[in-house]
């Protein structure tokens, strides 16, 4: 018979670390999908996921079971991703002069006829990747959660541990920061 989540957690807390394995197996897809939003290289994604699970194991005593385990784990995942972003700030000051041909073509198409520039094009996806990489860790986290994952301010506050007003302030600043970077991209391409 399959054990419930609560039973598995209780067993882990009693010292049976093997009971942690089914939890890792069940929730790793969500952890990996979240980590892939913030890290580009697969080795970095794996490092983040591993760190999340080690933290979860160490802090399991603090899990009170009031909210589902998944919510608790996702909070830890988002915070670990944020720590990763803070520790790996790169390419933030570089220019957009090295755009690939498909990226330049997509921008060109957007300028001449915006409706023909598809949201689904690979070039658009790599361009947004470049823009996100240039955002500050805070701005990237907020833009990803609020604009890309379409989460509410309350939900972001719960995930990040920030207060609701702080999330609103950071969202305002993040949008402004992103606008500045997109303008720079356009300027580098056309001026």
């Amino acid at each position, binding site marked *: 018979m399959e054990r419930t989540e609560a039973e598995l957690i209780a067993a882990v807390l009693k010292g049976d*670390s093997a009971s942690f394995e089914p939890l*890792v197996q069940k929730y790793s897809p969500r952890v990996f999908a979240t980590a892939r939003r913030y890290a580009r290289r697969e080795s970095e994604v794996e490092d983040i996921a*591993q760190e999340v699970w080690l933290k979860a194991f160490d802090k399991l005593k603090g899990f009170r079971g009031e909210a589902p385990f998944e919510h608790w784990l996702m909070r830890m995942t988002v915070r670990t991703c944020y720590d990763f972003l803070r520790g790996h700030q790169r390419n933030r000051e570089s220019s957009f002069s090295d755009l690939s041909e498909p990226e330049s073509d997509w921008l060109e198409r957007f300028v001449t006829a*915006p409706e023909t520039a598809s*949201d689904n094009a690979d070039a658009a*996806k790599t361009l*947004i990747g470049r823009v996100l990489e240039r955002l500050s860790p805070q701005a990237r986290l907020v833009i990803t959660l609020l604009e890309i994952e379409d989460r509410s301010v309350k939900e972001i506050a719960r995930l990040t541990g920030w207060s609701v007003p702080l999330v609103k302030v950071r969202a305002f600043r993040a949008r402004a920061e992103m606008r500045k970077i997109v303008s720079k991209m356009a300027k580098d391409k056309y001026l």
Partner: protein
Amino acid sequence: MDIAELQKKLIAAARASAPGDQVPYAFEKRVTALLASRVAPENLDGWVRGLWRAAMSCVAVALLCGAWTFFSPAAASSTDLSQNFETTLLASVDQADQAP
């Protein structure tokens, strides 16, 4: 160029490309093995920490005793342990000399 529109398009592109949720082969086994390997050193850590604490306490006690011996008023007095020892040891000889 309409920057706001471009920003919207790029956000839409990011929404359209949700990241994959595939997990590397046997990832859960790796995590459990890592946790198991961490448990043993953690037990050793307790011993090491305890022994270090004991060693530090011994050093502290030795230093305190040394300081007490060095700075105690007894050290300043004129009577010396070696002199007392010598007097006691030679007391019988002195007595023999004084005897008629």
